């Protein structure tokens, strides 16, 4: 298969650069810097060194023996929850932080939903001595309070976003507006495989370390390839990262799990692949949850990181070409998985990651006897308030 995206930033019909003209040269500058980065041994070594000695890579693949015994499914967990700051997001922000320094942009801005990407950006800003501003919807500020405190401690300014649904989508709007104003001095450190080209490509590449490691670990430590690789899909960066290590093996089935929320009506879920249709939001053509008047619909998920009405353009391409199967996991199933993993394995997963596991557990008959690799994209400390409220612990 040809390497995607093409030179215009398209994955088949999806992707592109639908942003104000003012940002076009900044996107081109970023792409040039990224190409230079890919060719520079020094920069690649610096990234590698930070990933190993600062972030804690490689993260292990753990065989969840108790859970496997209980369910009759062989479940392996890629432990991104053990990465510094507690989620896969840091793989991307270290890369973009170095790129930003290379472009002599000393101010990072970011959007965040669950707060994990905000924390990961604030962390890199602290490490590289950069200024950092994080936009976060006020609904998310409330439900992910521990991460707000962490960002502030790390020296970032957290700006509440009060427009629209006051969640991730609106935080991206606010960050884009900031970027248009400050494009000369600021790098927009986008947190997932969404937005205009080159972000979907670049973030995927920075996250591909997950898949590369997991593929080797399965073969070396765990007796061979998995039958299934399962990841949750918010924007789609942890999924794109782990899938990239297995795309060349057509026998392995790849499954992306969206937030099914608590119902099928608009505003009760974030199932873009099931209920969305082609649209343009935040810079790219992709599947979008929209009304018949082509307005972006409200979305819901118990997890702030999956609560987004669009999805990365490469995932839209994967769906149409049946390269990945996209499924749903409800709020309730995700919470049950979260509790079960905590009790049986002593691992408290993020509610986002709980969706990937929740799908496998709720469909355990389908997976009976199979080897299933689940990307445990993050840890659940940030979600303790919600977990406590929802489960009355």
């Amino acid at each position, binding site marked *: 298969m040809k390497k995607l995206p093409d030179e215009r930033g398209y994955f088949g019909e999806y992707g592109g650069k639908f942003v104000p003209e*003012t940002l076009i040269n900044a996107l081109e500058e970023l792409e040039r810097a990224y190409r230079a980065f890919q060719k520079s041994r020094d920069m690649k070594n610096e990234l590698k060194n930070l990933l190993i000695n600062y972030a804690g890579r490689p993260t292990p693949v753990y065989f969840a023996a108790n859970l496997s015994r209980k369910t009759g499914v062989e479940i392996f967990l890629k432990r991104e929850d053990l990465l510094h700051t507690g989620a896969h997001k840091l793989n991307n922000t270290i890369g973009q932080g170095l790129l930003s320094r290379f472009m002599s942009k000393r101010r990072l801005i970011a959007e965040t939903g669950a707060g994990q990407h905000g924390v990961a950006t604030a962390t890199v800003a602290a490490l590289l001595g950069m200024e950092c501003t994080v936009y976060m919807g006020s609904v998310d500020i409330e439900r992910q309070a521990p991460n707000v405190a962490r960002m502030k401690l790390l020296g970032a300014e957290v700006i509440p976003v009060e427009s629209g649904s006051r969640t991730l989508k609106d935080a991206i709007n606010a960050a884009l507006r900031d970027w248009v104003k400050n494009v000369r001095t600021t790098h927009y450190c986008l947190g997932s495989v969404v937005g205009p080209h080159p972000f979907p490509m670049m973030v995927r590449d920075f996250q591909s370390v997950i898949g590369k490691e997991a593929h080797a670990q399965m073969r070396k430590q765990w007796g061979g390839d998995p039958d299934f690789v399962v990841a949750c899909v918010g924007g789609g960066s942890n999924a794109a990262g782990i899938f990239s290590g297995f795309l060349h093996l057509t026998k392995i089935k790849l499954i992306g799990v969206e937030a099914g929320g608590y119902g099928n009506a608009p505003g009760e879920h974030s199932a873009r692949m099931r209920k969305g249709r082609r649209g343009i939001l935040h810079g790219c*053509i992709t599947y979008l949850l929209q009304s018949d008047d082509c307005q972006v619909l409200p979305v819901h998920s118990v997890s702030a990181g999956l609560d987004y009405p669009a999805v990365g353009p490469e995932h839209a391409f994967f769906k149409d070409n049946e390269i990945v199967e996209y499924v749903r996991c409800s709020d309730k199933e995700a919470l049950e998985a979260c509790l079960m993993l905590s009790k049986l394995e002593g691992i408290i997963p993020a509610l986002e990651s709980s969706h990937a596991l929740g799908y496998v557990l709720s469909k355990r008959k389908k997976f009976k006897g199979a080897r299933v690799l689940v990307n445990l994209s993050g840890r659940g400390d940030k979600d303790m308030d919600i977990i406590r409220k929802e489960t009355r612990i």
Partner: protein
Amino acid sequence: MKGYNGLYLMGNFPDPEAFVEASNAGLAFFDFLEVGVPFSDPVADGPVIERAAGKVLAKGYRAEDIFASIEKIACPPGKKIYIMTYANQVFARGNGAFATMMKRSGASGIILPDVPSVERARFENDFARYGIDLVRFITPESTHEQIQNAVPGARGFVYCISIRGITGSALVLDAETKRKIVYARKYSSAPVVLGFGIRDAHSARIALEHADGFIMGTRAIEKLESDGVSGLQGFLKEIAMALAE
């Protein structure tokens, strides 16, 4: 009024009747009208226009309703109505369907602030078939090469975004941007019109010193909201008098 100037109003804001009246009042002074078709996520707009869009959507108005109102505007010969909306409104409906609605309403140009030059072709060619002009942009970030590519084939007018920023910001024209405007005017057969940050006669005069015209938006929406159609009319008249030829 001196120059080739546009007035931005949000479709059906504050209500359909007042919108049509305000449009007619505006067309007495301005050469073209720019009508916002609201989108839920207007990333190029500041809080005033975003709020106006939100109010129109909250009342349940759809693009079709906005076009029904536009049809009622008495657009004098030689003057023109442009639509300003976001790419998804057009893309998700289909270019042909959107262009048909526009045509029927009497609008003959469109401004899509999240469609930059590199993505222009997929819209421009389809719209041209309906005789609708897709407006091209230059910005403070544009290189000479980009200006040279954008400007010669431009139809209607060239939208010069005055600042790095969103609608409703203050106008600050730096020397580099002024040079770019001079350069664009040299190559353009269409008027080069300055938008973003024009709030009063003073900023309009600055725009006219450098460009062929200006577009006023945020301030007009504020006036319409606070003082009604007659308040807006009075305000526009004062500006027109201050800028009389």
